[in-house]
């Protein structure tokens, strides 16, 4: 079953065609520009100008297919930037109506939870589902724990109360003068000093018994530490590493708490921060300690925002016949959460 999927939840415009779990094509506007080296033919549009990009990205994703092959259209309903979500939804409705296709709405967070199970066009990797999983979505916009009970069934057990983990990493990088997004730069600098912890920044929320996160206090203490200790600002790698350790150790200790509370030792972790090698190493260690396992997105493009993962969730919804009944009723839900799945 082939599904055309659209994701415009934040600053990426992405369109994919999937067949079951297999990704046949996945186009992301920023990536197309880089790969094709357009040399200024296509202007570098404002980050959130989805409306001006979407037709072009769709064209790029479906050029090897005829529209007759497509069985249904899946689109991200939320969470995300309202005006951005609107563009994707409007386009999905338009296509569904024009070509008489069924429409499926997908929660962006579901996409990240399914991302470790997304396959390439050859069907690799072939990972089997062994429910339940402890799911963690960790990105620039989200930090959430959920029990992934079965297909399309989630129970949210913790989330951030303020900043996302990826956002904390990005902002720390910016404070160090490293630009935005700076998470990957932070990671490289940390590797230069063997991921050491030199300054012992606070680990927020570890004393609380719940599974919620709060990173804004850590950000504040980092900011004023830099302000009050101008003498250390030269040690960028040590600062980067200490901050990253504070964030990742907090995530790991909370994950350990979640394993203990739920008794589930099989982890699936999705979202942009899973591109971080240190996070992967620490998660593997943790899983090993509890004789469990951990799955990450198998390909780099699946860590960030992408329509392929939306398409794969769309497939599982199609299997259960969870189509939108009246397409005009579909509306964006900017603060949609996993526990309030509606169709």
């Amino acid at each position, binding site marked *: 079953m082939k599904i055309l999927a659209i994701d415009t939840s934040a600053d990426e415009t992405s369109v994919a065609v999937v067949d079951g779990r297999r990704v046949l094509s996945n186009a992301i506007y920023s990536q197309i520009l880089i790969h094709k080296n357009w040399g200024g033919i296509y202007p570098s549009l404002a980050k959130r100008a989805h409306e001006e990009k979407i037709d072009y990205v769709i064209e790029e994703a479906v050029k090897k297919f005829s529209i007759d092959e497509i069985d249904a259209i899946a689109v991200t309903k939320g969470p995300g930037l309202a*005006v951005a979500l609107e563009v994707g939804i409007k386009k999905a409705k338009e296509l569904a109506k024009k070509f008489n296709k069924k429409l499926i709405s997908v929660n962006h967070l579901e996409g990240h939870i399914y991302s470790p199970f997304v396959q390439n066009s050859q069907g690799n990797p072939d990972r089997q589902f062994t429910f339940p999983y402890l799911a963690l979505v960790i990105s620039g916009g989200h930090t959430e724990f959920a029990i992934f009970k079965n297909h399309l069934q989630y129970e949210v057990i913790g989330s951030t109360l303020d900043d996302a983990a990826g956002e904390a990493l990005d902002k720390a990088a910016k404070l160090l003068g490293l630009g935005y997004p700076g998470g990957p730069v932070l990671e490289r600098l940390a590797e230069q000093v063997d991921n050491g912890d030199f300054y012992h920044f606070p680990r927020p929320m570890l004393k609380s018994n719940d599974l919620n996160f709060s990173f804004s206090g850590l950000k504040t203490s980092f900011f004023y530490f830099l302000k009050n200790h101008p003498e250390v600002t030269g040690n960028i790698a040590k600062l980067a590493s200490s901050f990253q350790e504070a964030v990742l150790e907090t995530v790991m200790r909370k994950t350990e708490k979640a394993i203990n509370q739920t008794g589930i030792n099989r982890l699936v972790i999705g979202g942009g921060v899973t591109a971080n090698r240190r996070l992967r190493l620490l998660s593997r260690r943790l899983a090993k300690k509890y004789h469990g396992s951990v799955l990450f997105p198998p390909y780099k493009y699946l860590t960030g925002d992408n329509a392929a993962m939306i398409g794969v969730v769309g497939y599982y919804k199609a299997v259960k016949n969870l189509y939108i009944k009246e397409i005009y009723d579909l509306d964006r839900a900017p603060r949609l959460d996993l526990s309030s799945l509606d169709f």
Partner: protein
Amino acid sequence: MIKLKLVENNSKEILKETLKVLRRGGMVVFPTDTVYGLLVDATDKKAVDKLIGFKNRPAGKPVSVFVSGLDMMKKLALLSKNQEKILEEILPGPYTVILKSKHLVDPAIESEKGTLGLRLPKNKNVETLIKSFAKPVTATSANLSSQAPHYSVETMLSTLSGKKQQSVDLIVDAGVLPRNKPSTVIDFTQPEVKVLRQGDVNFFNSKAYLSTSPKKTKDIAKKIFEEQSGYSDKPLVFIIEGELGVGKTVFIKGIGERLGINNIISPTFVIYYEYGNFYHFDLYQIEEKEEFKHLGIGKFLKPGNTLCFEWGEKTGDIYDLIKSKAKIIYVKMKYINEGKREIVINF
């Protein structure tokens, strides 16, 4: 007369050129936080005379000066501890402060009573310029006396004779400035502080709070929201400024809780989240004004709505739009120490 266009990436060169002209006693038309200003070295008699001649300013009518900070202000004028406390709260900002002069500037720009008007504007270029110049610079508006101030170089030039145009040594053109009023003039030399000219910011509608915890910050936010809502049929817009980690999101969570919204998280990644008729913006990631076009902010400026902007400093490009449609409450948050924040509200 040289005319230079100030664009995003050439401020360094422009400032260098401006410094050169000021150092040799020249006169510069320069964009400020309010209107186009006419800048000369305030300690150079010849330069000051040229300025007064240009403006057709009657003798004895004072001209205010830009300073680089409270330190320079203290050097040029008498300032009591109490006055200093008030000024620390409101500056930098669109105020002209009248104080007793120490007569280090050219006497022609002081008043007959020996007072001096001082400006510490919130404008990066002016700030950098005066810092590098290390001397006060005149801050009068670039119009002839008794005429309206100018928001663009074209309109200014169109009112000047060829001869007057030639007496300007350098024009720094930053296009059309937002229509901010000239500064609010506050006289500190009388027993009672007195507002002589009302600008955009109302000095007396200003309140300062001290918060000692995130909970207190939320309580302050709730109180301000309660006080402000209901008075106007316009949408309420909170423009919140303050450094990273000072508690801007906490403040907004307070307003949200007052409205029954308890799941507010940072919208940095997606720019804004909406919760019914409550909109929480974070402009941290906005890099170019082109981006505002795609956010459709205008359509949220409807009666009954509340909009909060973190990194309100970046609302510059949409400020006129917001101002024309909404009641604005400015919130400035400052870090005092680990457990203390100062919150200054202007409305």
